[in-house]
């Protein structure tokens, strides 16, 4: 015995005993002659050859290989049906130093998970996919798979797969190869020892690509399923060689490994102490400062107009100014499609007490930047309230004796300043004459925060001043 040396034996990437199985812990759960065991061995061999066992994370699918984690002494994650490429993508991005393998069958990858594999491939995720195609649903008992051959009788194609009713066998390697994302796609078969040796080389390359950081690799493995095909192991191998291989031609479908640029090593994230600056916030380590305001203020403002009149921005400046003045505030916009056309409105509350409801359904102040907005909201204004209207006069049918109405052509006034879009800020200037509790300095600081350019800040400052004047001369 001493002069014999071992040349082939069980890979150390497999557990010595399959303790996660409840019984028969010495052998796999696969049927006699099943290709999964062979594919597992090829994968284990490649992991061992590349010395990556500690780094490897195997994502197992739903299907016969759902229990791959019984066997592989690697990190293991079991995924929902079809979702392994999404799971694997996130694992790889969370742990770029790991080697992530998505092991999937044909129902899993080519039917329910067709979106996930397509997009993982198209993103060029730096993962390795082993796609075991045996052209049938094995685990569930022999239903038609997306790769089932035409004419083949399955439990759900009892008269044979018919293209008119069931469509055609899906060619995954060819389909994914038209994408720019993948670097390597090869189809191999497990039809005899020669094919299996070639499959082993492909699996190894696909893993090696990931180790080198080259990107997405997939090996489609045509694999025997003797039990469901109702063939013995020998006949099933023959069907792989002659039946499956005639429709799904083995070969390299995509190889960009030469021109692929290895991904750079991920940079470490910023120091935690730098996070607040990145987020543009300051941490408040003291007690929360309660709003401090000189006088009792409770402004309930509704602002409305058409999109582009600066309705939301006007509200935001008011809210910022209120907050600057030590008041509690809320700003609630209309949102969605009407932001892009048509009407726009917002609710603003500025209060010396904590704001309860941010909704202003009975405004004390209505700023109507156009006539439809005036018509829409005038009746909601509470008696004694203030209504400002962007026009020379309030239409007769919109008048209310119980509210304070101020009509000015704010947009035209802004036009005289050289910028008609500043009409909203002219209106703000006018409003500030009529309300109390918001100091001028707060408004100016609010403008500086909300307005993005110096040019606009200057225009808006002029607009505010002009607004105060036009209000005054009333």
């Amino acid at each position: 015995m001493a002069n014999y040396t071992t040349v082939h034996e069980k890979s150390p990437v497999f557990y010595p005993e399959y303790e996660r199985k409840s019984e028969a812990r010495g052998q796999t759960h696969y049927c006699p002659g099943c290709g999964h065991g062979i594919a597992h061995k090829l994968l284990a061999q490649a992991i061992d050859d590349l010395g990556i066992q500690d780094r490897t994370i195997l994502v197992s699918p739903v299907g016969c290989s759902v229990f791959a984690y019984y066997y592989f002494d690697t990190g293991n994650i079991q995924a929902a049906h079809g979702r392994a490429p999404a799971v694997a993508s996130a694992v790889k991005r969370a742990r770029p130093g790991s080697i992530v393998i998505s092991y999937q069958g044909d129902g899993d990858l080519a039917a329910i998970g067709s979106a996930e594999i397509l997009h993982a491939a198209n993103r060029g995720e730096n993962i390795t996919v082993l796609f075991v195609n045996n052209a049938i649903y094995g685990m569930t008992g022999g239903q038609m798979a997306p790769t089932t051959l035409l004419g083949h009788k399955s439990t759900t194609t009892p008269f044979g797969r018919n293209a008119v009713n069931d469509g055609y066998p899906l060619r995954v390697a060819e389909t994914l190869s038209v994408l720019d994302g993948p670097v390597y796609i090869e189809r191999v078969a497990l039809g005899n020892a020669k094919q299996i040796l070639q499959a082993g080389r492909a699996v190894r390359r696909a893993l090696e690509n990931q180790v080198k950081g080259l990107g997405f690799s997939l090996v489609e493995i045509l694999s025997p399923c003797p039990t469901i095909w109702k063939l013995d192991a020998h006949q099933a191998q023959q069907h792989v060689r002659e039946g499956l291989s005639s429709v799904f031609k083995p070969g390299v479908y995509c190889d960009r490994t030469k021109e692929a640029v290895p991904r750079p090593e991920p940079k470490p994230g910023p120091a935690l102490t730098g996070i607040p600056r990145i987020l543009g916030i300051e941490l408040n380590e003291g007690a929360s400062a309660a709003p401090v305001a000189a006088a009792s203020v409770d402004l309930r403002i509704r602002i409305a107009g058409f999109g582009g009149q600066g309705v939301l921005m006007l509200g935001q400046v008011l809210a910022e100014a209120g907050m600057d003045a030590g008041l509690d505030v809320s700003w609630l916009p209309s949102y969605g499609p009407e932001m892009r056309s048509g009407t726009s409105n917002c609710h603003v509350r500025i209060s010396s007490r904590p704001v309860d409801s941010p909704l202003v359904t009975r405004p004390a102040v209505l700023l109507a930047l156009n006539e439809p907005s005036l018509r829409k909201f005038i009746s909601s204004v509470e008696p004694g309230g203030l209504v400002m209207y962007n026009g020379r006069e309030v239409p007769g049918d919109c008048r209310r004796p119980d509210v304070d109405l101020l009509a000015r052509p704010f947009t035209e006034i802004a036009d005289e300043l050289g910028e008609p879009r500043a009409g909203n800020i002219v209106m703000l200037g006018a409003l500030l004459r009529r309300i109390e509790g918001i100091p001028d300095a707060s408004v100016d600081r609010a403008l500086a925060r909300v307005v993005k350019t110096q040019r606009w800040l200057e225009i808006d400052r002029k607009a505010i001043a002009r607004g105060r004047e036009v209000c005054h001369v009333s």
Partner: protein
Amino acid sequence: MAKQLMKGNEAIVKGAILAGCRGFYGYPITPANEIAEAAAYFMPLSGGVFLQAESEVAAINMVYGASSAGIRAMTASSGPGISLMSEGLSYLAGAELPCVVVDISRGGPGLGNIAPEQSDYFQVVKGGGHGCYRGLVLAPASAQEMADLTRLAFDLADHYRNPVIVLADGITGQMMEPVEFKGEPALPPAPEWSVTGTAETRGNLVSSICLEPDDLERHVRKLEAKYKRAEAAEVRFENWRADDAEIVLVGYGIVGRILKSVVEQLRGFGMNIGLIRPITLYPFPAAELHRLAYHARQFLVVEMSTGQMIEDVRLALNGLAPVEFFGRCGGNVPAAEEIAAVVRRLQAGSHPEHRLETELDEVALHG
């Protein structure tokens, strides 16, 4: 400038990153888009991952993968997207993976509209996915709570190894309010059970399979015990002047804010009225409602739906006190004045009217 005016949706992302979240996986949907957009900007700058998924199905499974790999991970969506994520939520709970999912709910069923509703309560609070699992559910009512409860959500998710859902609505997501952030930025290490691609974690397995009935029962009982612990320890609510109230209003999220305004209005008229605003929807503040039922004459549940949380209120009260309901839906938000009128009618002894058309035909955000 400790306080900043900020949208609720933005506050969520900043709260999440301060909590140590370094993975966001999202798919566009109104009215939750600002969350993904803010994450797309801030995650890479913070050393995290932002990935726009091909669907909500993929997004939640990316969360599953990231969580398996031991990082704090999240996604955000709205009702139709949460429907697609239900599968993944069941797997996450089954595999005992922590994660945070934000639902900025909109009008349904089907495509419905993008206006605010609270009609995702059943879906989010009662499960949505298959199997005996629960999601812990937090319901913020302000931009500040969007930040604070998101941060809390990550801690609860890790503590219970379970998905935590932040259930808000379009208003809370879209409105701007002053927000301040407290507490040092966190970045917890990978949990010992996670699969990180190292020699130390090589033996780890993330899975929701328990093939043998005895194993699965043991596993489900373990989850059940966990939920019981959460029920005992994690109930949160706001009691606003309800201790001596004859009429107790119950509403969560933005409706809670509106109800507070109703309480203030009616207290001004001498009415003895208060509010319970559940902050955790699961676990539900059942004991607090039960306690109040010994003093209160009447409960009124208000929701932006045709009545979902009311079932939990009824279970909590167990017949101790009458429960009435008022709801608006379709994206209409009940105005404080409208609810106040309902309360007055209730006090006068008549039932609130369930109307489609009201005299206050207010569409708060739209049209």
